[in-house]
């Protein structure tokens, strides 16, 4: 559905009177998001994952590289058609509070884009109204209760469902979910993730999941691919469970080691890795970008920058000169060891 080839994006770096330091947000990112599939991007804040999402939704332009939506190269299209094509990619924002206009009711939020859609499909006003009700039902909101409300009366979880319903008004092929559960109450998070999963299976919508929560990525797209971004570069990617269970790149290993262990329910891994330094985004090394923080760096790491190469499993690739697989995530205790509650 979406194919990215060597997407590059650099911010700042203007010369002249008010010169600023350029910051590379994306350095030649390739990935393929198949129809109905899922791709997850994980990484620290500032690794470029948000920029990637914004590029896919047409809110930013790439500096170089190709972005193909449904097999068509966006750059080759005239403005109008590009906008139409990008409409098939919709964003689910991180903050459901600022993603909804406080002055528009739930009905207006849905019916504005639906009216546009109705014109395309040559449908009438009735269709707009029934579709709004249908979409609310699909995302698990009660239309009778919601339709005339303003967003501020809804809870975070309900708002996020509404945001998803709004994205669905244009029948998108792809949903880009950027930290879509970060600001939602924990007891409601899984509900949103389950909804995304349900939309994948029921509507065949592809999901690009951007998060720092690996477990959430796994829940939504366990059958898809996991990409690890570090300072704009994909340092490792592969099938979700392959990357989680035998990560090759030390950065991936550090990320996975940082996941808290549910003591009593999970057995911590024997080995864990932590970076030896904090992120210094101002420093642009000639060699591996992670070398200055890598606990396993060797002398040659600072000299040449590794590119993606194949790991053992098919489709699993990493960009490390001295890879060593480590099992760093906790494993669940056998279900038997966990007695159920009292009757």
């Amino acid at each position, binding site marked *: 559905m979406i194919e990215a080839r060597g997407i590059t994006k650099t911010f700042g770096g203007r010369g002249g009177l008010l010169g600023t330091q350029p910051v590379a947000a994306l350095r030649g990112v390739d990935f393929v998001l198949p129809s109905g599939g899922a791709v997850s991007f994980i990484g620290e804040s500032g690794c470029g994952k948000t920029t990637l999402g914004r590029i896919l939704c047409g809110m930013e332009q790439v500096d170089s590289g190709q972005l193909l939506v449904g097999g068509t190269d966006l750059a080759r299209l005239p403005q109008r058609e590009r906008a139409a094509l990008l409409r098939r990619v919709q964003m689910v924002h991180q903050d459901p509070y600022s993603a909804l206009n406080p002055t528009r009711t739930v009905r207006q939020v849905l019916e504005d884009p639906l009216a546009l859609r109705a014109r395309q499909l040559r449908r009438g006003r009735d269709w707009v109204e029934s579709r709004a009700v249908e979409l609310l039902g699909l995302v698990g909101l009660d239309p009778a209760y919601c339709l005339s409300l303003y967003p501020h009366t809804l809870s975070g979880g309900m708002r996020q469902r509404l945001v998803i319903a709004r994205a669905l008004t244009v029948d998108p092929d792809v949903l880009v979910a950027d930290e879509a559960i970060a600001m939602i109450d924990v007891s409601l998070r899984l509900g949103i993730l389950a909804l995304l999963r349900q939309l994948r299976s029921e509507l065949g919508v592809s999901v690009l999941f951007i998060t720092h929560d690996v477990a959430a990525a796994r829940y939504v797209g366990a059958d898809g691919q996991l990409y690890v971004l570090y300072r704009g570069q994909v340092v490792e990617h592969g099938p979700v469970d392959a990357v989680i269970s035998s990560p090759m790149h030390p950065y991936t290993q550090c990320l996975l080691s940082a996941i808290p262990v549910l003591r009593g329910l999970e057995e911590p891994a024997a080995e864990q890795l932590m970076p030896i330094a*904090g*992120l210094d985004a101002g420093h642009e090394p000639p060699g591996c970008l992670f070398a200055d923080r890598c606990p396993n760096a060797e002398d040659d790491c600072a000299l040449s920058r590794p590119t993606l190469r194949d790991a053992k499993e098919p489709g699993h690739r990493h960009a490390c000169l001295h890879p060593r697989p480590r099992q760093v995530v906790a494993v669940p205790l056998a279900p038997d060891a966990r007695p159920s509650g009292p009757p």
Partner: protein
Amino acid sequence: MSPDSPPSVKVTTGSGKARWARLGRRLGARVLTGVVMVLAVATLTFFLVHSMPGNPIQTEYQTLIARGVSPSLAAQQVAGMYGFVSSKPLIDQYGQYMWHLLQFNLGKSITASGEPVVHLVLSAAPWTIIPVLSGLIVSFLLGVSLGAVAAVRRTNRLGKVLSVSGSLFHGVPQFVWAVMLAYLFTTLLPIFPFGSPYNILDTPGWNGPFILSLVYSAILPVLAYALSSYGGWLLTMRSSVVTVLGDDFVLAAELRGLRPLTQLRYVARNAFLPLFTTLLLSVGFMFGGSIFIEEVFDYPGLGYQLVNAVNARDYPLMSGDFLFITVAVIAANILADFLYTFIDPRVRKAA
């Protein structure tokens, strides 16, 4: 297994030299913009004068001809007054006007019998600048401190009275202040002199009685400036303090048990910062107000001169005054912007 110490992180503080270079660039860019603006205002003035009803330049030329002056001499005289020769095409006249402007030549006044406009403007300037600045300082100090009180006490009576007083003072126009003060303190309660910037019986110069009479006569105008801008400062400071009081660090300072005085200092400094830019920007507003205040108190400043020039149709003097006032405002803007980078560490870095 957790490591014994967390990974160390680097603190990036702006290095000295690069910072100065950035500041220099910023200042350069601002000055450049300012020069462009001055030129634009000059252009505006030129075309305004040119669209004056009955074309004053042509009228002046005709008057001279009628008085029996030869056409070439008349043209020369007109050129001397306005800085451009009327018979040439507009674009040439404009070019000449701007060229004279770059040499600080604003032409000659019509009413003041051929006195260069630059001299007249410069001699009027101190009569405006000194009272304006004094009034500004008085109102700023008063408004800012009372504004802080009004914000801190915003729930009780004192705060409400203060902020209503601020709105009221802010709302009342300058000429009303001037007339009220003049009527109250020179007619109903005649404790201040009226109608002259100093006692005409004293000899002008550096002598005690003269300076004393200057100060004495300046009290009412300064008071008028101060009263008309006090309310604005109070309101701005109040809303700035209210905003800062909602910031997280203020609650944090309280919950860490900092002294009330320290907390107040934290709030005051953060609230004060945005006002600093406004302080210099308000110079423009005050200069505008000089028109009314000087007119009421017969104070021979720029505003008084401007109004008289307009009434007497002395266009060279009028455009000279207007240009000077605008340049002063632009200069204050640049100064404000530049100084701000020094007092706010955040801008200092981002500059």
